[in-house]
């Protein structure tokens, strides 16, 4: 009986809270961000401070996000495309300009990085930098050593030379399911212009990847994090922070797996993930509040310490763990930075060639 009473009381309060929320016209902000890309507790803190409820949803490829944006009516207030995609999305009129008077924390951002992303977003009118990083190679140290002495883990040779990669096919190799990451990497390895829109260059890159295709276990954009951490694969072409998260997870699991990330010496892609507000966002004011919140030095540092990605928040650098701020693969020094290439939006014609080539590669046609 007592149980019954307490049940009906809790049911009543539950219903009552619903009603109250409805009366108060609950404030919400709908965020669509990459998977594994925010620190625990950051969202709850925002909800407590502002009373705005956060609906947080995740994706794992720029293409999926773009497909949603092009369909329209996504209901999202904040989305986080990479700068190379943002460039053409701005041109297609998918975003609204930021009201910078609502973003006083903009002053915290790193001037040089904000300048670097102006090639995608002139005058930084539409977006702020959320995190940035590189695309390189993650590997399982022990599994690599067992199979090859002095393996070229700091070179694209490891992935693109079929003779070398063949030694690791048995322990599992994954590549990103993103043509705009893999084709430029192949072009860098071939010594060609990574941003080339030349058909012959594309064919050369396609052939190079087809040569190693039989040795690849899967193409994916987020599964490789847990696969690396669990020892299901030994080499992953992936995003810097994701691979470092895998390292972190393996450490926590104490499963005797050591993961490393390297930026290949030939050069690699540097990318910037940008927060922007879709033109049809239902709550743009709340979106601005969240953006401003995320640009607080303490919050930015908290996220970086958790996701192992570099932020662009200069004021937060002092608050970032030593282990991260001094890690050359996260905050690369000048000589490595000089070898990094930022991708741009491709022309529509080349984009179609690229996606066709990519489908052929993936399906082994």
């Amino acid at each position, binding site marked *: 009986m007592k149980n019954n009473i307490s049940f009906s009381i809790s049911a009543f309060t539950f219903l009552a809270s619903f009603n109250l929320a409805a009366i108060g016209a609950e404030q919400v902000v709908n965020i669509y961000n990459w998977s594994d890309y925010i620190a625990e507790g950051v969202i709850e803190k925002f909800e407590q401070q502002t009373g705005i409820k956060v609906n947080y949803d995740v994706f794992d490829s720029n293409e999926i996000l773009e497909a949603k944006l092009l369909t329209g009516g996504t209901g999202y207030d904040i989305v986080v495309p990479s700068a190379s995609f943002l460039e053409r999305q701005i041109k*297609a009129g998918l975003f609204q300009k930021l009201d910078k008077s609502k973003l006083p924390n903009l002053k915290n951002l790193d001037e040089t990085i904000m300048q670097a992303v102006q090639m995608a977003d002139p005058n930084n009118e539409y977006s702020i930098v959320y995190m940035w990083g590189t695309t390189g190679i993650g590997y399982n140290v022990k599994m690599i050593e067992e199979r090859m002495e002095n393996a070229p883990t700091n070179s694209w040779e490891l992935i693109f030379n079929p003779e070398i990669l063949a030694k690791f096919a048995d322990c599992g190799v994954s590549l990103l399911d993103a043509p705009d990451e893999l084709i430029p990497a192949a072009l860098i390895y071939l010594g060609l212009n990574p941003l080339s829109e030349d058909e012959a260059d594309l064919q050369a890159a396609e052939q190079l990847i087809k040569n190693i295709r039989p040795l690849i276990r*899967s193409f994916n954009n987020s599964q490789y994090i847990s696969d690396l951490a669990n020892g299901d694969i030994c080499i992953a072409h992936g995003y810097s922070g994701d691979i470092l998260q895998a390292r972190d997870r393996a450490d926590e699991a104490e499963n005797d797996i050591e993961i490393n990330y390297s930026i290949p010496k030939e050069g690699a892609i540097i990318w910037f993930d940008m927060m922007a507000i879709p033109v049809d966002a239902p709550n743009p004011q709340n979106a601005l509040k969240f953006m401003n919140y995320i640009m607080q030095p303490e919050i930015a540092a908290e996220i970086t310490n958790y996701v192992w990605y570099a932020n662009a928040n200069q004021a937060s650098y002092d608050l970032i763990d030593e282990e991260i701020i001094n890690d050359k693969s996260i905050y690369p020094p000048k000589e490595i930075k000089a070898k990094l290439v930022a991708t741009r939006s491709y022309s529509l014609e080349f984009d179609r060639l690229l996606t066709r080539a990519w489908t052929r590669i993936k399906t082994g046609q």
Partner: protein
Amino acid sequence: MRNFIRQRERAISLKLGKKLVIYIPLFWLLLFFLVPFLIVTKISLSQITYGRPPYLPMFEWSKDNLLTIKLYFGNFFLLFSDSLYINAYLNSLKIAALSTFFTLLIGYPMAYFIARADEKIRNILLLLVILPFWSSFLLRVYAWIGLLKNNGIINNILLNMGIIDSPIKMLNTDFALYIGIVYSYLPFMILPLYANLVRLDEKLLEAARDLGAKPLALFFTIILPLSMPGIIAGSMLVFIPAIGEYIIPSLLGGSDSLMIGRILWDEFSANRDWPVASALAVAMLTIIILPLILFKNAQKKEVAIDE
């Protein structure tokens, strides 16, 4: 006279009721099947662009009151000029056909056993067949990942027992794909087969036995022909959805397990090519309609037999 009027009234209301019963589902089909199909067909005949929506309009009303209608057939030509699509179709048909065969092979004995089982346990057995539906289809497919992966349950057991030295690669292969499809669609095979087999007249079998038929002859000359409608119904229920299957090939299959559902998804999302994706969908529907017609004919036959 009064009686006559009443009868007429009744007849009219009966007619109305009949019409309602027929027209409501018809309206439903028109609204949720035909209209979306027409929209997809319209997109399949337009050209790709970068914008919202990502295709160019078909109708344009210019200032001098000229209506131009642009029909672009390039998307359909692409389906035939790029061997990828035809291969994907053929491969989907092959995978669906083989999976149907395997589900039949496993499902038939199960259905037969359940139909012949004691009435008390029959319902429990049927419940067991339906039970997996209580959990999400996606979760059940994910569970297979845990079973099949390199350091998954099956490989670990085999390794510990010393049967194999290095893990067998099962996940992301066609083998895993077939397992996934056969497992997921098995109930759709068992249920119609059961419904058919449970109605099988025991007297026919007794008569055959009395006349000296051996078990094998009994099965091939009496049971199998009589259960044909059930076999066809079950096979169609497996074959048709298996052709367009998307989740199982993308989670369990390798990236070279070519299936049309997956190509369609890639065209729509990763390639942002709505027109080509729509053309694929239209072509796929036309192909699937063929087995559907066969299915209908088989059903008609079954009704005829019952009568």
